[in-house]
């Protein structure tokens, strides 16, 4: 009773409106743990805080803000010092969580359903394709950002005492990020996924000694080859185990970062000293509002860039190839790009050494690097050896990545290559990119004097295609010679036969002919069907 009387008296003396506003302000102050409406406005405007500074209570009272230090050293908040790559890694992970939960709703991890669920997301769920593209692009972006973050902390020498352990937890995060991307790769259950993960799985199998490799592979895939059990395991790892691991290790990582402070530019302190935590009052930059607004600005900008890349089709969209088919090995099995360097290594020698031992050594070295680098200086001029060694390693990494692509040392028969170039098993290729109506019925030949019906003249588009095919035949012949294959395509020519097959469906037969010295003419043939609406070329 007393309470109501008090309220009634207050309202009578203040008036309803101002009483309500005051209650609102109380609520806001509670929610922000100490900032009232005017404080918030001042914060957004960049005014100086009142005394005592209520912006600091937020840091001690609120969970999210207590994680952040209340002020930084001016020198470390410059964009070019950290490029805020750690923040970006965190943000990318956050985007993955949000978009991932959305995708989870529409997805069941069984071979019978997974692919169909992807189709459903693309054809039936509003914004499904956008979310999937964001999830995929951000996943690949996260690999890049985390990698660059590592390179940055290496370049500024931030892994040295007292931040060795921060670096070590960072390497765990790097591995987890890679595995997150890789485990997600399998989930669409298409040819791309299936075969990339098959390569990966077969590498684990090679880990010495055989008992260990075989057992690890069995535990991971649940069977000698990827199947329902493997898909379920990858799904659980992808949506549950690895994300939890990342969150857990991230908090250790970030706890360390805040505890010891972000390292100052090396020129600002004596060699071997670490003054990051002792910030003179005049060099402080408060988190609220300065750093906070900078961070929000960066995140908004990055979000915009990610979306723009997708909407403007600069990012072509997350691929979805044909349904996984264990009986049909694609001509070129490709690892995801961030593992091409391992594929490159594999082409160089023994799979156990190149595929397992070398990568283990690389990551093992990353783990212990801070503990075996006894050079106390973080300045570039004192670190010539370490810096050059890393530059060299990065160069080797780039070269290995290139060697991992099919451009290097993949020796498939040249006739198959020609067909693959014109009409790949997956993706569009020049023939599918041709408007369907322009695929002129008839039998077309790459030789200039086309034998056959003189009445049927190829339309310009078909002529273009046949010229392209002729070029590929010549090029693949040369390449086969360069790669030292037994047989190129001597006297080679090609044919493309286009038939009307069904309503909206054309059958395309690709034939390659070649005649090595003193042998009968050889042929290679492959047939395709192209539907008017298939839309590969768009």
């Amino acid at each position, binding site marked *: 009773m007393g309470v109501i009387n008090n309220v009634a008296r207050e309202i009578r003396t203040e008036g309803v409106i101002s009483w309500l506003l005051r209650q609102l302000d109380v609520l806001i102050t509670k929610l922000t743990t100490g900032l009232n409406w005017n404080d918030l406005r001042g914060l957004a405007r*960049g005014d100086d805080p009142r005394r005592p500074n209520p912006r600091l209570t937020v840091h001690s009272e609120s969970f999210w803000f207590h994680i952040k230090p209340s002020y930084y050293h001016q020198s470390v908040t410059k964009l070019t010092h950290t490029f805020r790559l750690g923040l970006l890694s965190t943000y990318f992970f956050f985007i993955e969580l949000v978009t991932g939960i959305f995708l989870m709703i529409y997805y069941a991890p069984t071979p*019978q359903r997974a692919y*169909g669920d992807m189709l459903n997301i693309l*054809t039936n769920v509003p914004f499904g394709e956008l979310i999937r593209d964001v999830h995929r692009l951000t996943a690949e972006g996260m690999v890049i950002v985390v990698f660059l973050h590592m390179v940055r902390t290496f370049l500024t020498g931030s892994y040295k005492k007292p931040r060795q352990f921060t670096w070590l937890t960072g390497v765990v995060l790097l591995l987890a990020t890679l595995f997150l991307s890789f485990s997600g790769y399998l989930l669409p259950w298409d040819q791309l996924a299936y075969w990339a993960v098959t390569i990966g799985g077969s590498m684990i199998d090679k880990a010495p000694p055989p008992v260990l490799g075989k057992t690890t592979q069995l535990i991971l895939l649940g069977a000698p080859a990827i199947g329902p059990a493997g898909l379920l395991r990858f799904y659980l790892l992808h949506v549950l185990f690895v994300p939890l691991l990342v969150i857990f290790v991230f908090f250790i990582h970030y706890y360390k970062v805040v505890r010891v402070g972000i390292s100052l530019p090396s020129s600002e302190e004596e060699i071997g000293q670490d003054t990051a935590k002792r910030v003179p009052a005049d060099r402080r930059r408060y988190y609220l509002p300065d750093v906070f607004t900078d961070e929000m600005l960066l995140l*908004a900008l990055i*979000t*915009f860039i990610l979306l723009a890349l997708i909407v403007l089709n600069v990012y072509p969209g997350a691929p979805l190839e044909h*349904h996984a088919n264990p009986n049909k090995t694609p001509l070129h099995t490709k690892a995801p790009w961030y593992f091409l360097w391992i594929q490159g290594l594999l082409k160089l020698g023994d799979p156990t050494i190149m595929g397992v031992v070398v990568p283990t050594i690389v990551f093992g070295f990353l783990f212990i690097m801070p503990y075996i680098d006894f050079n106390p200086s973080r300045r570039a001029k004192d670190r010539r050896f370490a810096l050059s060694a890393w530059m060299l390693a990065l160069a080797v990494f780039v070269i290995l990545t290139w060697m991992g692509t099919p451009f290097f040392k993949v020796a498939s028969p040249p006739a198959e290559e020609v067909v693959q170039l014109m009409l790949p098993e997956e993706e569009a290729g020049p023939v599918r990119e041709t408007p369907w109506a322009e695929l002129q019925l008839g039998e077309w030949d790459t030789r200039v004097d086309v034998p056959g019906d003189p009445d049927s003249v190829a339309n310009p588009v078909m002529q273009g295609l046949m010229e392209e095919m002729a070029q590929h035949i010549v090029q693949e012949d040369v390449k086969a010679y360069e790669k030292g294959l037994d047989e190129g395509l001597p006297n080679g020519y090609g044919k493309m036969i286009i038939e009307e097959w069904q*309503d909206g469906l054309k059958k395309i037969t690709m034939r390659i002919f070649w005649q090595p010295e003193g042998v009968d003419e050889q042929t290679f043939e492959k047939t395709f069907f192209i539907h008017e609406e298939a839309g590969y070329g768009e």
Partner: protein
Amino acid sequence: MRNNTLLKITIGILAVLGIALATSIVGFRELNRLSEREANFAGRSIENGAKLFETNCIGCHGVQGQGIPGVAPALNSANFFDGRLQEVGYAGTLQSYIELTIASGRPVGSGNYSAVMPTWGEEYGGPLRPDQVRDLADFILNWEATAVGGGEATPTEEVVIDPNADPVEIGMAVYAANGCAGCHGEPGGAGIIGPNLGGIATRAGTEVAGLSAEEYIHQSIVDPNAFIVPECPTGPCSPNLMPQTFGSTLSEAELNGLIQYLLTLQ
């Protein structure tokens, strides 16, 4: 205002507007995109089905799904789209009828067709995954637009035999009327799913020890599973591919003629 705060605020606002713009562009196009994507994947499913049909089905149902009289029905005929479900008394959709038939096959030959349709669905031990069965059904359904007349369930033609005719000629007629060529091809050409019978007269005597050429051919027609030759055009031969019913459907004279005819294929 602090230095360059204004600039930052401007960039921030622009970025947020940009995000809103990008999302609304997607939202604006979304309905069109959904139906486009649906058409894309329906088209790709038909492409996949066409490929599967070519590797698995043309032997009995014909290259263009026109069927082979006496062996297997046409799938591109108006009758298939309009009358088939009523004929067999099936209450579901044509799509489900096709998918079910592909998945479970027709392990029991029906009166009109000699060939037994193998079980294709992997859930029943066949080679095709459910999505492949669906692709095949999509491909077959796509014949509807061009399906024309004909092709009703054609009963095995009554071969009118002149008892005085040359048995070899009777045999040739029987070979044609029962759709043997649907699987074995024209003698001397290439087999389609069964081995070609060119040269059968020469090999028949040596296939199974103790059987003469004539006995071997007789056994192969009336009891095809008694001996399975190792190689068929699409891989190792499997039992039950050849109809098991010729022993009862062919008359003495027809059987004899067929054997005499095959014995001429040196």
